[in-house]
């Protein structure tokens, strides 16, 4: 199983793997927002948590279709399905690889981009915490969407349409953590909710994703 | 005609939009069904 994770990481970081594109997209998004709303701190500060989360969400979306599409094209998915590893574990591992190559860089980059958006200093810690807890769920739900659309020729747009509504609860609790943190409030409740959602997604969605993959393989 | 008071526009707009949408889905369902029946009958007749 480690071999699968290692291979996916190697493929993502080698030439043509698209590693770092998500962070670059995230940067552009955060750089564009002030042009839209104006450079004043009073305009940027209240929307910074939301922009950072929505930006992370959209950046995550960019690379979702690669989770299974490439393996489907070259026949690896057929072979993985006949391997001794259960398909549920394959989907979970691929989501994990996606998180390490996309989600984790976003978590690291977000505090820097927070400065661009005048995010208050005391909220930075909560930004990292909320992204760290929330982004794994984004990758796993994305893997589910990718599993459903893997056989389709123009699945990319449909994938976004299917996955984004599933991101709503994560987005709500994620930004709530930062907002409460920035106001000096107690963000324990949204943290617990967000962690609960992520844990539930991790436990249950691999089964749905594996079921969808099996349908698409027949 | 009954008097709708100062909210006449609001009420009429709500009824108008709703009835339009309902009529739209009814018409679409009916038309699609008629078309499917025609095509199937045509195919079964011609073999």
């Amino acid at each position: 199983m480690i071999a699968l994770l290692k291979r996916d990481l190697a493929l993502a970081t080698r030439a043509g793997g698209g590693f770092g594109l998500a962070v670059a997209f995230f940067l552009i998004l955060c750089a564009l927002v002030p042009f839209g709303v104006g450079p004043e701190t009073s305009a940027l500060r209240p929307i910074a948590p939301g922009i950072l989360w929505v930006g992370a969400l959209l950046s995550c979306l960019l690379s979702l279709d690669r989770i299974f599409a490439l393996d489907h094209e070259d026949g690896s998915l057929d072979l993985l399905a006949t391997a001794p590893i259960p398909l549920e574990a394959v989907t979970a591992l691929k989501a994990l690889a996606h998180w390490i190559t996309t989600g984790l860089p976003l978590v690291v980059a977000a505090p820097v981009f927070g400065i661009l958006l005048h995010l208050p200093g005391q909220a930075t810690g909560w930004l990292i915490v909320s992204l760290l807890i929330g982004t794994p769920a984004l990758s796993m739900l994305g893997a589910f969407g990718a599993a459903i659309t893997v056989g389709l020729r123009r699945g990319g747009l449909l994938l976004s349409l299917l996955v984004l509504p599933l991101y709503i609860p994560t987005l709500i609790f994620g930004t709530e953590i930062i907002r409460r943190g920035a106001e000096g409030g107690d963000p324990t409740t949204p943290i617990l909710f967000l962690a609960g959602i992520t844990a539930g997604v991790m436990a249950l969605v691999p089964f749905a994703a594996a079921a969808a993959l099996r349908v698409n393989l027949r | 005609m009954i008097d709708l008071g100062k909210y006449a526009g609001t009420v009429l707009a709500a009824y108008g939009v709703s009835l339009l949408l309902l009529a739209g889905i009814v018409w679409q369902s009916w038309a699609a069904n008629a078309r499917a029946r025609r095509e199937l009958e045509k195919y079964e007749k011609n073999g």
Partner: protein
Amino acid sequence: MSIWEYANPVKFMRVSGAALPWLAIAAAVCTLGGIAWGFLTPEDYKQGSTVKIVFLHVPAAMMAINIWVMMLIASLIWLIRRHHVSALAAKAAAPVGAVMTLIALATGAIWGQPMWGTWWEWDPRLTSFLILLLFYIGYIALWSAIEDPDSAADLTGVLCLVGSVFALLSRYAVLFWNQGLHQGASLSVAPGERMSEVYRYPLYVSMLGFLLLFLVLVLVRTRTEIRRRRLAALQAREMRA
């Protein structure tokens, strides 16, 4: 004979064909009657004539949720018992549900304009319906994107299952996010908040009408789907032979 016999396409076509004219008449009478009766009700002392919108808004909102539940049940029947008509019924119901959601949203927005002073308010209930609309759109889009009917039925079934969980989750997340202006459920049974009888009876008729209308539409659309599938199946068989 078990109830599953009705899942046989031939039998379904026969029974639904016989029932449809009567159901259609009942649906037309109840829906138009309920709406017209509602339109003629007196004004509310607080909300003025806008109270008449309730006869569209509430039944549509009720059906928007119930249709999704019906799709969930139909999907489960397909996934567990593999009745093809059940999968097609779920597919047939989705556009009707989307239109109901749209009516609930549109009437809500139009009603909100004079009451809250804005067309759109990010009220938890309105927001939940917007999210529900997104799920309907995704479900319909997935059905139309997959060519192979067997895969399409399975994948949309799985999506409906996962979507149901997340629609419910979003509902509670939205409550947490914003407390909102929306009044409580209109048919609340708590004493003191009960709706006056002048409004209650037309509302019941209208709700029954919307339910019957949905039944008629879903039967017609399922028949359409069965005919389309039959045509495709005959063509596939001819191509193979």
